């Protein structure tokens, strides 16, 4: 029995064109789920065809599903240098959603992974008929990929220990490449910033890692203020989970408490970030499918 068909699409986005795959259900119910991929070189099928499998499962429930490659990734055109959480790719998001709306698919559920979750949150206020938002290991801080570890370590450990750790993990061959040198320059820069401020006892120096992003709070708050259900999923070993726990002790916790039942926070074994095991992938797919089904009952 055919439950779905897949259709490639090129979608103009600014000066670029994005490769997208629309999965069309055999028995459509009129809601489209858009999968926002993580940052990095992963194209829209994602690890072990996670995106394809999720699309087929949701299509089996009657949902259209679209997944796409960011500009500069996969089959899309353009170039990309970084995936900074405070510079989400809302142009890409707008292009995909507007294209779907032009085709008559105006009722939306958005599902994003890591950087994708930050982009969908940043764009969500422009989606008129938004029925739900699912966030997989959403970063609560505004850091470029890889910046977080260096800053956190520079802040939290002593100079001697920091240097010791750096030397133990130093791979001399890495210094032969521009990428390797850039990595170690970044480590050194954060160490100097933090420790210099400490020596000067400068109380105004902002050396603390930002535990929660103001943008993240604003965007999430905007979605919740509209009464839109939100699913937040973490792996217990995700770095994002630790950041989320810290953030939850402050303003984020207050925001979630006010939202009440609108927000579902779920924890999975291992790591959701990167979807690094088949069992995690299956658990995430099953949870999203169940959650979409629950909120979908209100959308028909």
């Amino acid at each position, binding site marked *: 029995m055919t439950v779905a068909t897949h259709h*490639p*699409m*090129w979608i103009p986005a600014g000066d670029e064109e994005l490769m997208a795959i629309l999965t069309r259900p055999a028995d459509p119910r009129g809601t489209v789920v858009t999968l926002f991929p993580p940052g990095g070189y992963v194209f829209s099928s994602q690890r072990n*065809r996670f995106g394809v499998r999720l699309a087929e499962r949701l299509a089996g429930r009657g949902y259209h599903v679209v997944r796409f490659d960011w500009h500069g990734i996969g089959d899309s055109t353009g170039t990309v240098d970084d995936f900074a959480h405070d510079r989400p790719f809302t142009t890409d998001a707008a292009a995909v959603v507007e294209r779907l709306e032009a085709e008559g698919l105006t009722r939306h559920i958005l599902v994003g992974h890591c950087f994708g979750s930050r982009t969908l949150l940043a764009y969500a206020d422009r989606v008129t008929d938004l029925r739900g938002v699912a966030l997989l290991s959403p970063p609560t801080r505004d850091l470029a990929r890889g910046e977080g570890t260096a800053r956190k370590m520079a802040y939290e450990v002593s100079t001697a220990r920091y240097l010791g750790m750096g030397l133990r993990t130093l*791979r001399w061959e890495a210094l032969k490449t521009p990428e390797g040198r850039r990595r170690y320059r970044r480590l050194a820069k954060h160490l100097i910033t933090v420790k210099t401020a400490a020596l000067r006892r400068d109380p105004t120096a902002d050396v603390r890692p930002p535990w929660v992003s103001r943008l993240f709070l604003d965007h999430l708050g905007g979605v919740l203020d509209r009464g839109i259900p939100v699913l937040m999923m973490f792996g217990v070993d995700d770095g994002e989970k630790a950041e989320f726990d810290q953030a939850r002790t402050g303003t984020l916790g207050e925001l979630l408490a006010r939202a009440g039942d609108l927000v579902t926070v779920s924890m999975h074994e291992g790591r959701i970030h990167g979807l690094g095991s088949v069992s995690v992938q299956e658990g995430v797919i099953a949870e999203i499918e169940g959650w979409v089904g629950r909120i979908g009952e209100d959308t028909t």
Partner: protein
Amino acid sequence: MTVTSEIPARPGPSVRELPSGAVEMACFDDHGVFSVTHLPAGTPHGGVVVTSPILAEQQKNYRREVLVARALADAGVLVRRFHYPGTGNSAGDEPSSMSKLVEAATEAVEAVTARVPRVALLGTRFGSLVAAAAAARITGAPLALWDPVADGARFFKEVFRAARMTAVARGAEEVPDRDHILDVLRREGRFDVLGFVVTRDLYDDTAGLRLPDLLGPGARPVLICQLGGSGPSRATNDLVADLEELGVDVTVGVVGEAESWWATAGGGDYFRGEEGRPLTGELIRCTTSWFDSVWGTP
């Protein structure tokens, strides 16, 4: 820029036309196999089928394959890329045998030869084995190889090492050794390596394969792009010697730096676009200039 794609009622190609007149056409075939065909402006003077790696290496190498396809199309070459059944966007179960991979490659070759009189293959990593087996059916077809897997057993050794290294890095109580992994494969029919599935069928079918055996004897030009090093490595020299015994005219290009196929670029903690990586540019230049030398510039 003209975009003619629409959401079709039935599966069909989506076409992207470039200002140069070149075209990229993405589609699923009747079996759900996803492919992208890069048509150059004007009449193509040759065709290349790209056979990709599998597992994590497929994702890692994907953008480079898109970029080399676009570069070759700019040089007047028709290029067809596809996802093996059960990988990437294509429908199906996980790959279970070399013959199924080669069958998909052969279908891509047939699609190319319907449009151009001469065809070559570009195999990347594990895809080198597939490319060699498919090229063996085409007398004299040029064969370009990126960081080729010349030996199936060696490939799986690297894959299983990635599983062990990840377990160590994550502080796992039990680090799976090769015997354990093979035992799981025998008992359960599959093993999870960083979220990718290695099947017993694929392991059993391909671990004993060697690239020279798949290619077989016959004169043809072959390019080996070795990643990193100051000169050809021992493994490259061994492969060259084996291929030359078959009558193959081998060119070796040493480009860029060694790739960590199972780690994220640069050590795992940050991203850099492929277009900005010297390795990618060198690989593409090495490949396009070799095809120029083999076929001549139109």
